[in-house]
């Protein structure tokens, strides 16, 4: 767990203890009970040994230390149990920074050779000096907030005392991770090195000097944290200063704006800093421990850890991949159609080093699709996040063409042409005519059932749906759709491709709208139903956002465009009959498309107006078509309805076997269309509000 040895060489009349973090059971170091016991013992042993002049803490893993043991935190349900862990954690860190009970002048150096996140950075903050490798891949930060937690190992207290209230609050409430150069600038680390050897040498030299330092009276100079000094002042001013008043007032409002008070962690972090920085350090740790315990047992943290950490890990480790099929890397991908989606897929594939054939009806159209990659690369170069050579290499991987034959040597072909069965069937046939018999052909359709599209294929077992989200380079999710005849090899191929381009896959069975589009559309439909019932449009939109959705349902309708909605609904009526669709949406989209000619954002107006150069606003004439009711419902009621309708549909997807696992349903809802993470996802929502309450909601909201 932790190796401890003393330097053979003498430094400053003694030796230096080298503490190496090395968890034998895991690929990375995490803080758990076992780890804390080991660290406690090492620290005790070192400080009891008067020949030890100081300590260097380093890691044998790629990461320095990845943070807390989330598995353990997920299981804890009692405040007292959390407090037990934090007390132990605090005690070990305090023992480190106080050089043992006698507070001798024995410095501790953190030698950071890999990412120090969460508890990892907190351990480093409890050291007297932080040295770090000059490596852009190393991440430094306290990202606990992204899982509904706060830095509970003294991070909310040491970081602001080190770098000041404002930068610390910003870093902790956003979960921002920074590279070593930035960490140096912010004052989080002291010095950067090109190699681990140089860093170790510098650490030893510094310990030798500091442990031997004497003041003018010949007394040893105490080694302590800056805030232990009597003359210490918080950088940038303390809590009770005009600057901090402004920082807190603005941060309080910005946190409310960002979280709609659905996420308790950012506010708890602010409280820790506000309250903790007004009291001595050890009381401050207790304040932090109090808020930390509240968050750990809070259902929101449980939901976020379960879905965003464990659920996503499961998806990324390809839990859904059929067993017994060896890895199937894509050697060359053919993309048919160089529109928005095709261009985006071409970019992410080339970025992952996969050669791409980007085919459209004309070379000009294909080149235009390729230029999307040029545009993204240029933006990245401007931000210094990409080297010009990398751009050339990436563009060199994309071949723009108008020839159907060009995909002949592709082992994966993805069609992204318009949502029209005939055209899709035609391109499928064209591709299969030229490509190898074991090539996998995929459709990027977002609505048309795969089983039906596969009818155009000679080899339906090799035909699959790979549904990307727009914009492809930003959206993290890919929905893989298994048709009735789709074979395991095709599933494995699609999953391996999705991981190669560093996206998170979920695998669902075939059905109209699959999982994501089907459930997501209920949000829009419910918004339209509310509007028809006379709920004020602003209330609907605010309720959607306050419930945690990224945008209101009417704004979504405008983005999707009302004519596309109308087209899909009519198609569904053709396929399933009039009862197969939501009547409100059919009527309203028909009104907007046929009578009002307001198609959404793209036509300059839908439910909203889009003034050129200005901010969009709700179309004032909505009230003429949808008379507002005299009494308006409470915003919480509207918000619940907008979430419950999605949960209800997601549950149906699970019951009908569209979804193959609850985890996929949760992960897909959060990553795919921004279902609020605090609920744990569209299916966890039911557990979150409670099954009985959910049944009540379903009964109440059903018309």
């Amino acid at each position, binding site marked *: 767990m932790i190796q401890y040895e003393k330097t053979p060489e003498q430094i400053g009349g003694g030796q230096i203890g080298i503490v190496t973090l090395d968890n034998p059971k895991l690929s990375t170091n995490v803080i758990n009970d076992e780890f804390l016991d080991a660290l406690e013992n090492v620290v005790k042993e070192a400080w009891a040994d008067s020949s030890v002049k100081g300590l260097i803490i380093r890691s044998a893993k790629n990461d320095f230390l990845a943070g807390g043991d989330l598995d353990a935190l997920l299981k804890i349900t009692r405040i007292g149990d959390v407090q037990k862990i934090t007390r132990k954690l605090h005690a070990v860190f305090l023992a480190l920074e106080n050089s043992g009970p006698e507070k001798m002048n024995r410095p501790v150096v953190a030698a950071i050779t890999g990412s120090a996140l969460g508890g990892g950075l907190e351990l480093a903050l409890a050291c007297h000096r932080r040295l770090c490798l000059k490596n852009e891949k190393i991440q430094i930060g306290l990202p606990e907030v992204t899982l509904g937690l706060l830095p509970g190992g003294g991070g909310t207290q040491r970081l602001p005392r080190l770098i000041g209230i404002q930068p610390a609050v910003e870093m902790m409430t956003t979960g921002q991770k920074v590279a070593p150069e930035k960490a140096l600038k912010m004052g989080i680390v002291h010095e950067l090195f090109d190699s681990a050897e140089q860093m170790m040498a510098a650490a030893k030299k510094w310990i030798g000097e500091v442990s031997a330092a004497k003041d003018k009276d010949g007394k040893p100079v105490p080694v302590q944290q800056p805030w232990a000094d009597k003359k210490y002042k918080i950088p940038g001013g303390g*809590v009770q200063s*005009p600057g901090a008043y402004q920082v807190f007032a603005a941060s*309080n*409002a910005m*946190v409310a704006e960002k979280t709609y008070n659905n996420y308790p962690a950012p506010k708890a972090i602010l*409280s820790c800093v*506000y309250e903790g920085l007004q009291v001595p350090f050890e009381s401050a740790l207790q304040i932090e421990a109090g808020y930390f315990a509240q968050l750990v047992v809070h259902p929101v943290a449980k939901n976020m850890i379960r879905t965003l950490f464990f659920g996503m890990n499961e998806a990324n480790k390809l839990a859904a991949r059929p067993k017994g099929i060896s890895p199937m890397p894509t050697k060359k991908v053919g993309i048919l159609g160089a529109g928005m989606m095709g261009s985006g897929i071409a970019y992410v594939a080339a970025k992952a080093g996969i050669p791409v054939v980007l085919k459209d009806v004309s070379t000009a159209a294909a080149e235009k699709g390729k230029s999307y990659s040029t545009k993204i690369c240029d933006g990245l170069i401007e931000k210094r996040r990409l080297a010009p050579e990398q751009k050339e290499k990436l563009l060199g991987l994309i071949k723009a063409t108008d020839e159907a034959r060009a995909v002949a040597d592709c082992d994966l072909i993805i069609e992204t042409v318009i949502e029209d069965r005939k055209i899709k069937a035609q391109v499928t046939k064209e591709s299969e005519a030229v490509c190898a018999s074991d090539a996998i052909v995929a459709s990027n359709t977002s609505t048309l059932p795969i089983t039906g599209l596969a009818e155009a294929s000679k080899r339906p077992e090799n035909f699959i749906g790979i549904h990307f989200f727009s914009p492809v380079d930003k959206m993290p999710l890919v929905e893989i759709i298994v048709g009735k005849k789709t074979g395991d090899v095709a599933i494995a191929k699609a999953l391996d491709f999705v991981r190669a381009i560093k996206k998170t896959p979920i695998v669902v069975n075939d059905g109209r709208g699959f999982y994501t589009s089907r459930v997501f559309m209920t949000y829009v439909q419910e918004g339209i139903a509310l509007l028809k019932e006379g709920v004020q449009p602003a209330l609907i*939109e*605010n309720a959607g956002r306050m419930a945690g959705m990224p945008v209101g349902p009417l704004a979504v309708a405008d983005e999707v465009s009302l004519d596309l909605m109308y087209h899909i609904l009519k198609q569904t009526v053709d396929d399933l009959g009039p009862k197969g669709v939501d009547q409100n949406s059919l009527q309203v989209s028909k009104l907007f498309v046929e009578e009002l000619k307001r198609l959404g954002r793209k036509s300059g107006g839908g439910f909203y107006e889009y003034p050129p150069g200005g901010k969009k606003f709700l179309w004032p004439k909505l009230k003429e078509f949808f008379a507002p009711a005299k009494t308006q419902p409470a915003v919480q009621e509207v918000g619940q309805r907008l979430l419950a309708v999605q949960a209800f549909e997601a549950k149906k997807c699970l019951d009908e076997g569209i979804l193959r696992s609850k985890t996929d349903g949760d992960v897909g809802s959060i990553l795919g269309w921004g279902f609020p993470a605090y609920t744990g996802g569209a299916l966890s929502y039911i557990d979150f509000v409670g099954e009985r309450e959910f049944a009540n909601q379903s009964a109440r909201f059903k018309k």
Partner: protein
Amino acid sequence: MQEALIFDAVRTVRGKGKSSGALHPARPVWLAKTVLESLAKRNHLDTAKIDDVILGCVTQSAEQGANIAKISALYAGYNYSVAGFTINRFCASGLEAINQATTSIMGGYYDVAVAGGVESMSRVPMASDGGAWSVDPDVANKAAFVPQGISADLIATLNGFSRRDVDSFAVESHKRATKAWEEKRFQKSVLAVTDVNGEVLLDRDEMIRPEAALEGLAQLKPSFEELGTKYGFDSVALQRYPIVERIEHVHHAGNSSGIVDGAAALLLASREAGERMGLKPRAKIRAMALTCEEPTIMLTGPVSASRKALAKAKMKMSDVDLIEINEAFAAVVLYFMQECGADHSKVNVNGGAIAMGHPLGATGAMILGTALDELERKNLATALITLCIGGGMGVATIIERCV
């Protein structure tokens, strides 16, 4: 029960609340001393007869800390037997001081009291005393704190007051204040502030702009747009008022109350104590009321407080001859007039805080004095004085002239 009567009222001129303002060299105790001395002198008071000095003061730190009321009484040369206490009812502190003195006289705790307020906003900046309200994360969150300008813009948005509406109101305030000065309507109670040698620092309200016009005001940038959109406060307000799509930011420095320095004080006593001192009462306090509204919209309190005070006085709004409502923001007054059916011709007839400024702790006492002078000038009977207050509170007081 004793009756509480008003015998006199004075106020200082109001100086621009910046380091460039004419009253900036005057310490807050100096401003308070100016009004306390004047009251004693012009009424030939034996100050030993005064039971208490109550001063409203909002930012009670630095020079305004440590109970500035008692310290100012000492500094003004009042007999050491005079007690003093300082109160903070935010923007209505000056009126609250009068109401507290009134109830104490009515209840027999005092016979004679001085009540008023003081605020040097140039020397002790607003909010420099911190507090938990906006700063403490747990408190700000539960209280859904927004700056008052956001609340004022929310009131304008909810009621459809346009930028032109609020600007027009501001222009009228300057016009009325200008005319009031030209006709010397404040002469009875306004005091110049001097330096230690009696040299005049300022003898006229410094911020009135007779030339104020719609065209000029239209050029000003909304003051709270950035706070609202960049720092999250609009969202905090909308989460309480989700019926609103977005807040229209219409308030700016020109249609909000000016930040100024100043002080005011009134002499109150029971009828018997007044007679013993040989003073003639000018008015009596007829009714007082305190309410509190939803804290995020914050500034609608004058409506409910006024209705409550009117009910206590068994009066209707139309029975009141004059109304003084603090012009914290133009929308506050527009909303009050709309809701209470108060005619603009009776409201703030000599201008208000948009033209002359709002020295937080002193304003309530200043506008009551202004109403009293105007009742006498026009030979009218009753006036209602009201202010909106942080946290959603409202205070209203109805006075009636003694004839």
